[in-house]
């Protein structure tokens, strides 16, 4: 025998996962889609804040350098090896994540998803920032208002295969159809995680269709991208943009009006909530229908059969409130 068999780390993990109670050390590891973008770094900040306040919580944060599902699974595998108590993932590709989460659970580790769900997986809870419905409708409402209730707009999305973006887009399409008869979505283009490309495409869209008076930047990289395009084309006030963008990156555009608003939620709170949820799982405590997580995160609803924790309604970032956030 040349090896002490550890079943990929299960033995130990089983131990502390099972006999949990009181407030002994709990290690919660969070794996973002990609490191180094403000959105997830802000979630990390929130998680660290939680680690400060909730005693016994150790917060790990480790993400891939590119939004690559393979690299992400490698990291989860190393976390399994490290026998952490809870692994929470924001999967780049829900399906590819499912099997690895299964592995983690077999190794006696609690698993959950945050920001993006992996419905088909064994995750015990999904920490949701805001319902797809909520986000999609907020985006459309804000944009159509800016557009003055009528016109045409196009959507500049990012990864062609990004699950959550695609569901938001579907909501937006249906909602516009039903609510705003004289507003039309001309097309949906995909710029990858590339700001410059997003700007290029937005520019081309505006040139191709002079009627176009609205643009949606569907993700945090394309939100400033489309605004920049409008600014460069000198068509502020003619073409309006709304995006899902982080405050700091949107401030300049909100100020000069090239962006009419950015739909987001308090990302740091999302991070905090994620960490908190991890602790609950590790300590085997049930979620209530309404949870008060910390003094400024209250009324977090939990849906029993979808096993979703919902942070709350999204917020609309404007010139006024955007600069209050430091990410």
């Amino acid at each position: 025998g040349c090896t002490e068999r550890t079943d990929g780390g299960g033995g130990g993990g089983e131990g502390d996962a099972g006999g949990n109670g009181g407030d002994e050390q709990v290690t919660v590891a969070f794996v973002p889609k990609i490191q180094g973008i403000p959105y997830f770094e802000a979630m990390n900040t929130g998680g660290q804040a939680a680690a400060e306040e909730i005693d016994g919580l150790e917060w790990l944060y480790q993400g891939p350098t590119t939004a690559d599902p393979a690299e992400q699974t490698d990291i989860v595998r190393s976390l399994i090896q490290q026998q952490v108590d809870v692994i929470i993932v924001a999967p780049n590709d829900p399906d590819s994540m499912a099997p690895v989460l299964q592995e983690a659970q077999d190794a006696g580790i609690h698993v959950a998803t945050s920001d993006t769900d992996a419905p088909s997986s064994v995750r015990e809870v999904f920490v949701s920032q805001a319902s797809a419905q909520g986000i999609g409708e907020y985006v459309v409402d804000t944009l159509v208002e800016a557009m003055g209730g009528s016109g045409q707009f196009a959507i500049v999305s990012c990864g062609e295969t990004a699950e959550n973006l695609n569901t938001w887009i579907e909501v937006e399409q249906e909602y516009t159809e039903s609510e705003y008869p004289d507003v039309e979505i001309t097309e949906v283009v995909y710029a990858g995680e590339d700001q410059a490309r997003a700007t290029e495409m937005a520019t081309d869209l505006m040139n191709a269709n002079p009627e176009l008076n609205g643009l949606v930047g569907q993700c945090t990289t394309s939100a400033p991208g489309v605004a920049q395009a409008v600014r460069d084309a000198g068509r502020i006030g003619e073409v309006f943009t709304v995006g899902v963008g982080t405050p700091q990156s949107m401030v300049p555009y909100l100020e000069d009006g090239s962006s009419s608003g950015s739909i987001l939620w308090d990302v740091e709170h999302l991070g905090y909530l994620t960490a908190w949820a991890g602790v609950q799982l590790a300590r085997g405590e049930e979620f209530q229908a309404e949870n008060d997580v910390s003094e400024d995160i209250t009324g977090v609803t939990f849906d029993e059969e979808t096993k979703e924790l919902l942070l709350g309604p999204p917020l609309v970032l404007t010139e006024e409130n955007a600069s209050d956030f430091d990410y």
Partner: protein
Amino acid sequence: MSPTGNERPGQATSDRTPTGEPASAGPHAEGVGGRVLRALLTQRLVLLAVLVVLVVVVMFALDAAGRLSASYNFDYMSAVLINAVPLTMLALAELVVIVSGRGGIDLSVGSIVSLAGMFFGFAYGLWGWSLPLALAATVVVGGLLGAVNGVLVAYLGFPPLIATLATYYAYWSLALVVNAQRPINSPPIQGLYDLSRTVELPLIGPYVPLVPFGVFLFLLPTVVVVWILVSRLLYGRSLYAIGTNDVAAMWAGLDVRRTRAWAFVVSGAISGLVAVVTVSQFASARPDAGTAGNGMALPAITIAVLGGVAITGGIGRVAGVVLAALLVVWLDAGILLLVAGNIASQVQLLALGVILVGAALLNGVTSRRYGLST
């Protein structure tokens, strides 16, 4: 071909040192000790082997010293092997193409993985073909996609870089549109994940670590087949011949075009197999499986080059590529345990870069010192 062109054999690059198949060092009389040292310094294979051992030993030492956030043991080493499967297989595909010479290189492998993967998704996941049938068909599809490169390069005279760049873009698009950029993850596909589960070997099972099933099912067979192909079959001879000097190969009565075209077919077929591997690993056929992030082609070429494959053609060994892959995978796995947080993935980049440059420089400088280059 210009009679003074770079292709003239015997160029002054370290890649030209005869570390490749099948010739070894020149006629130099010297002592045993000298020969060993010389082998270490001038032959990529030996150097890589030493480096692999070094990495493992260092990691075990760090582990013993409690510097790692988890134990770096044989189980972990074999568990991460699953990450090596696609990369190594594609690196072998590049080996075959690069050895064929004339600037041979295949940028399209990643896109072929995506496109063939989608085909497999349809065949096995939706059309309900049997696994063996779907698998075989996918490999064939991969081969056909590679054949396009082969025809463009060998028969129409496109530079390999151009031909495969074009198909890289084209296949990428096709993979996205065939299923309206949605992945395929029907139950049969999800069931496939077992293929990349770890299994206990028969007989010796209890004594050795669990090894990912995929390693046996896909990697080892590919390694063996490619090794047989390039160093035991007649085809291998023609391959190295055209890669070394295709004018001479023509005069020697070899079918240069056919041999070169087949190199791309082989590369495509391997990519097709990799497609099945990734689908099973992700339990989902993803339209961007081979193109997400930085794509699969460049990393594969990197491994091949690190493995001692000379981009000038005619030189390269299967063993070198496999060692290079093991080196990278085990090093990366160690770094994930050694370094915490975001920096880990970044340090992996640094390590790979340093090893690439270091190994090349060492081999290059020393082989000149030993007067191997003509």
